[in-house]
């Protein structure tokens, strides 16, 4: 006679709940179409450089330190743009 085992049933249910929960955790980024990725990465890089140049020019005009803030901000802005691209690429790589 098969014994009724509520404990075993409960642990089975527990495992199922855990499985569903794990599915609901954030995975690495959902697979976008490659066109979407291309759109994102291009603008990310350009906006970093543009932000650095415009911010640097404005800071120079305000502080009267031409051209030092432009040089510093352009380098930092470019680095930040590359940082954003690397971050996107890293999440895409996790998928594969």
């Amino acid at each position, binding site marked *: 006679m098969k014994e009724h085992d509520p404990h075993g049933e409960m642990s089975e249910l527990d495992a199922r709940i855990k499985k569903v929960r794990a599915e609901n955790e954030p995975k690495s*980024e959902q697979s976008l179409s490659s066109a979407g990725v291309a759109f*994102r990465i291009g603008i*990310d890089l350009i906006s970093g450089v543009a932000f650095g140049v415009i911010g640097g020019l404005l800071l120079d005009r305000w502080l009267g330190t031409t051209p030092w803030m432009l040089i510093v901000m352009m380098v930092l802005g470019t680095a930040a743009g590359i940082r*954003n691209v690397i971050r996107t690429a890293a999440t895409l790589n996790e998928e594969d």
Partner: protein
Amino acid sequence: MAHNPLDQFRINRIVELEAGGIDVSFTNSSVFMVAALIVICAFVILGMRQKALVPGRWQSMVEMSYELVANMIRDTAGSEAQRYFPFIFSLFTFILALNLLGMIPYSFTVTSHIVVTFAMSGFVFIGVTIIGFSRHGIGYTKLFAPKGASPILLVILIPIEIISYFIRPISLSVRLFANMMAGHTMLKVFAGFVISLGMYGILPLAFMVALTGLEIIVAILQAYIFSILACIYLNDAIHLH
């Protein structure tokens, strides 16, 4: 004058209004925003009117759009972010409706103006920052200091991380605005060739048919990218990597 490809982006005041010295006129841009709202409400409310267990064609389209956004939020930001579903869904459907309404000939594309897209991305940026600080307190600033970096490198890395955080709303808004504006300008330029080339105008005309299809894909894709990036920023604020 009518041949100017940039003419389509002109804003015309329909009802002139002024509040406290600020021009708040009801413009053609406003008309299309209201139209987008009406289209979305009609699509969702009329589609769900039957509330059938086995959905009809229209109802299943509404349910599909719901599931698309719900899955997008769950996959990118986790189940904790589900409470922000109404915001992301509104954002997605609003941008999608504006982009698609702009594809109708003689209509106006609201998202081809950077003021509109920057207002939306700025709203996302401020909202996400507030969520981040309210969930993690001052610990949210750890986002700017990568783990395991040496203190000397941190001097360079922290400014870079802060700038890359502030670039996000700019790249988010520029991406949508630039894609919409470039596409619509290109359509108008080629439309000009159709007239001026006379009989050979059939070539640019054929190209424009293909381009219109591409523009519809871009309209949908850009709405999707905008909302998925909002989800990714939300994920950073909730889970703090």
